[in-house]
């Protein structure tokens, strides 16, 4: 503790992204991300900086996973909806 200059800056815990991902998409990835966010804080408070860095990477990964899954769901959804829409128009045209 006497050597304050050796304390690295606190790694980002990506809490905003975790919240956004929980609210708008994916409960599971969002909660995983929040848990890792809290691990970042706890490890950093205990002085385990490598551990905090690792948790930060995991928090980021789960936040990105949530974003990726939500984009994927929208693409699949729009693909299905898009086909139905085009089909509807073509059907309407054939009458």
């Amino acid at each position: 503790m006497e050597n304050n200059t050796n304390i690295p800056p606190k790694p980002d815990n990506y809490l905003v992204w975790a919240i956004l991902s929980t609210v708008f998409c994916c409960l599971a990835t969002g909660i995983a991300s929040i848990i890792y966010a809290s691990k970042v804080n706890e490890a950093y408070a205990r002085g385990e900086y490598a551990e905090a860095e690792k948790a930060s990477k995991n928090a980021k990964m789960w936040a990105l996973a949530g974003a990726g899954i939500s984009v994927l769901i929208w693409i699949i959804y729009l693909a299905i909806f898009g086909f139905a829409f085009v089909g509807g128009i073509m059907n309407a045209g054939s009458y």
Partner: protein
Amino acid sequence: MQAVTKKVITVILGVLTVSAVLLYVFFNPEEENLFFAKCPIYSTMGIHCAGCGSQRAVHDLLNFRIEQAIGHNLLLFPAVVVIGQHLLTAYFLKNTKSWLRYTKAPIIILVVILLFMVLRNLKFYPFTYLAP
């Protein structure tokens, strides 16, 4: 090269955000025949998750109907306030501490979300108000 990639990503995200906001301002996700994706958890398991109702709540908020927004998803409005405060401290009020920077913030948020999710699935008064 990397700076260019970053700029491109920023522009794409910006365009997506603006179009999403416009989409949610003008279209009500509650109308059945529109193309809004339903919550995958509710569709498959029939459980209201913590995020259920957030699309409707965003539509309500963007049209300044806070009461309806709270009715569709109690936590969305507080979430917007908290994230708004965080962004303010990040860009303007640099001497103020963001609520999200407190050590206990993630664990408190986790408990609130899980509690909310359990309570909003209870099928009796007064918890029925929490359902989307």
